């Protein structure tokens, strides 16, 4: 009797666990399958025209703006994030007060929702600094948003470099700076890169932080001070206008492909990293 009861509980718990996993993966398949079914039939050549107008609803300007905004954000955030990580991993002493505050604020930054970044970017970059709705204001806002991600992955990558590398370099007479820049940093590049690619993923998916900073102009920006919309913002605009829903799904397919590529790239780099260590 006792044994049977035990057996039932085993089967029950097992069933619940398998069921939950099936639900998660079922939802993913439903989501991806659904976007593909609704979007792929609408992938027409006119969607890829160089210039946007309300007839062709081209996504190419949005795609180019996405790339431009991503590059500008990375140019700002990656050096800052990597330098900050070098300080935290190589220079800061144990029990340093500043380090505790830096870690706390970095955690805070990573928890702030994108709409709050959007509000701040609108108040600070757009109005206070007078940049207007522009690529630069949008990218500056996003660079603060991805800073904690870049810092964390860079710090972890630096910390995973074996101490023997540093000792070897010191032993050959190199100074601290030379050791960090020539020996430690190059060995940490794959880890940093994996984090940077994840940051690109966040930029590509971002909408709320961009609407009131980069604006929603659907053309290729001629200068960093002009407004532009990324693919995600483009999709949201299509949905809220309600006229081009089919093109919205087609855009979703392109966005999905970009996200899959980004994930695969990041996983591949992380895997190579794992094999090496």
């Amino acid at each position: 009797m006792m044994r049977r009861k035990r057996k039932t509980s085993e089967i029950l718990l097992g069933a619940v666990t398998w069921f939950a996993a099936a639900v998660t993966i079922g939802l993913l398949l439903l989501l991806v399958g659904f976007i593909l079914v609704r979007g792929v039939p609408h992938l027409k050549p006119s969607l890829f025209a160089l210039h946007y107008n309300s007839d062709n609803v081209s996504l190419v300007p949005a795609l180019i703006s996405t790339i431009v905004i991503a590059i500008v954000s990375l140019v700002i955030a990656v050096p800052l994030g990597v330098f900050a990580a070098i300080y935290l991993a190589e220079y800061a002493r144990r029990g340093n007060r500043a380090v505790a505050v830096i870690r706390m604020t970095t955690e805070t930054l990573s928890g702030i929702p994108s709409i709050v970044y959007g509000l701040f970017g609108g108040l600070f970059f757009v109005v206070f600094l007078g940049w207007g709705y522009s690529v630069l204001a949008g990218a500056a806002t996003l660079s603060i948003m991805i800073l904690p991600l870049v810092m964390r992955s860079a710090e972890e990558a630096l910390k995973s470099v074996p101490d023997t590398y540093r000792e070897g370099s010191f032993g050959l007479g190199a100074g601290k700076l030379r050791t960090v820049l020539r020996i430690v940093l190059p060995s940490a590049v794959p880890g940093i890169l994996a984090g940077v690619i994840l940051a690109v993923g966040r930029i590509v998916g971002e909408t709320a932080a961009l609407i009131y900073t980069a604006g929603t102009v659907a053309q290729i920006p001629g200068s960093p001070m002009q407004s532009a919309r990324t693919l995600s913002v483009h999709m949201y605009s299509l949905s809220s206008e309600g006229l081009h829903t089919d093109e919205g799904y087609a855009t979703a397919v392109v966005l999905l492909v970009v996200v899959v590529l980004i994930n695969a790239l990041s996983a591949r780099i992380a895997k190579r990293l794992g094999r090496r260590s």
Partner: protein
Amino acid sequence: MNRLNANKLRERLMGAVFFISALVSILAVGLICLFLFANGLPAMGKIGVFSFLLGREWSPTDTPARFGILPMIVGSLYVTAGAILIGVPIGVLTAVFLARVCPRRLYKLLKPGVDLLAGIPSVVYGFFGIAVIVPLSGSSILSACILLGIMILPTVIGLAESALRAVPEQYYEGALALGAGHYRSVFTVVLPAAKSGILAAVVLGIGRAIGETMAVVMVAGNQARMPVSLLKGVRTMTANIVIEMGYAGDLHREALIATGVVLLMFILIINLSLSALNRRGK
């Protein structure tokens, strides 16, 4: 001698550059708080803190205009609670599956799947919600809860899985040795041992859900009134900001920024409890 000095100077200089870069995150948090508070708090003063936070009516374009954000605060809390109720059980059980049950081959397929779920942009979730969930349950609290429940899955799964993996193997083996079956050992010994990590996963999920904007805007209906039923529309704080910021002016605009301040307060409280949890975990 000269070269030695130049080297020393360069060391000092770059050390300072690294330190200043590290201070940028402090600067950023300071500026965000400063600009939101400076632009939002005066509005709270003008409207009156109590009639702002506890006012049940939001009609910014009427005369006289009313700026009560209680409907949005309650809306955000309802939607978040619903998302947790849906997302946490599925997420934790999936994490148990990934960490303790899943065959290795299957894991290689499932893990990238969960990562993909995390990488899908919220607008895409919104499109999915409009076409699949809204036809079933309308533009409503329930639709928002379901969609957010799905969206927080990868956050909950990721953190819960690493918490479960951090439990020493001996716990599991000990339970087996005492005669418990595989699942019983996992659920009565390993899972409770990972509870502080799982709690952290839940708190992070709350943060994600309360801060989500675009997907919620697309499925929640966005009526600025006190929530009446699960199947009726609701407006969250995030939705309030993103919908009206485009055309708001003067006090209305400041009231929206003040909504952002309230949202930020919620997030700061969530962050504080998260770091308290992590400290206790150590």
